[in-house]
């Protein structure tokens, strides 16, 4: 049996989705990798043109490039369909992953969902 490296480790993957008019907030928890990234991407669902999708990654214990690819595909989808993707990475490993991969330069990143105008 493994020793969890941090208390958040081992939280099963899940996604909370809240739709409020034009704004959809998607909040995954647990770990995003090759096994779970498609579920994160699919959770966004249909988006209205002119809407905004906030992907709040602050509750994740882990994310790798499978999650980055999901974010980039969602960003591209938003550009094609006329809605905006906003990513909230928090200040932990997800933010460092966005910086290391430079994906943070290509998508809209905010510190908190309420920072979106």
């Amino acid at each position, binding site marked *: *049996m*493994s*020793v*969890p*490296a*941090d208390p958040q*480790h*081992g939280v099963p993957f899940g996604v909370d989705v809240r739709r409020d008019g034009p704004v959809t907030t998607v909040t995954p928890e647990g*770990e995003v*990798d*090759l*096994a779970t990234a498609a579920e994160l991407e699919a959770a966004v669902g249909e988006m209205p043109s002119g809407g905004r999708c906030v992907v709040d990654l602050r509750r994740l214990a*882990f994310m*790798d*490039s*499978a999650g*980055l*690819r999901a974010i*980039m595909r969602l960003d591209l989808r938003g550009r094609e369909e006329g809605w905006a993707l906003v990513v909230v990475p928090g200040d932990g*490993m997800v933010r*460092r*992953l966005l910086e*290391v*991969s430079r*994906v943070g330069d290509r998508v809209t990143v905010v510190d908190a969902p309420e920072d979106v105008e």
Partner: protein
Amino acid sequence: MSPASRGASHPLRRTVPAVPACVAGLRADAAGYLAAAGAPPELTEAVRLAVSEAVSNVILHAYPPDDDPGPVHLVVEVSRGTVHVTVADEGRGIAPRFDSPGAGLGLPIIANVATRLELGPAGEAGTELRMSFDGLAA
């Protein structure tokens, strides 16, 4: 056997079928092994990410998508303050693949978080990615 009872001087060795569901377990095993070795959180985070990327590369690239998945081998070892991680497959080797899934993010991420990175053939077939990470108190 727990990582603590195994002791950090013995390598962690895992061989599992290369399927998406295996990534989290291998990542957790590597992190648990390093925690037992007294690794600081930032080092454990780097290794956890690198293992995840390297194992995902095997799943995405090593074996033809329609075949039964082949194995992925993980070895994690601590030696004189350095963590050595090897991820190997028995697949089709390093070759251009024009239908490649993924955005080519994995290796650059590993190169960024690891101290050293070496990619080469493994045995008669397959590919081996050798990574090392400084930052463990000797």
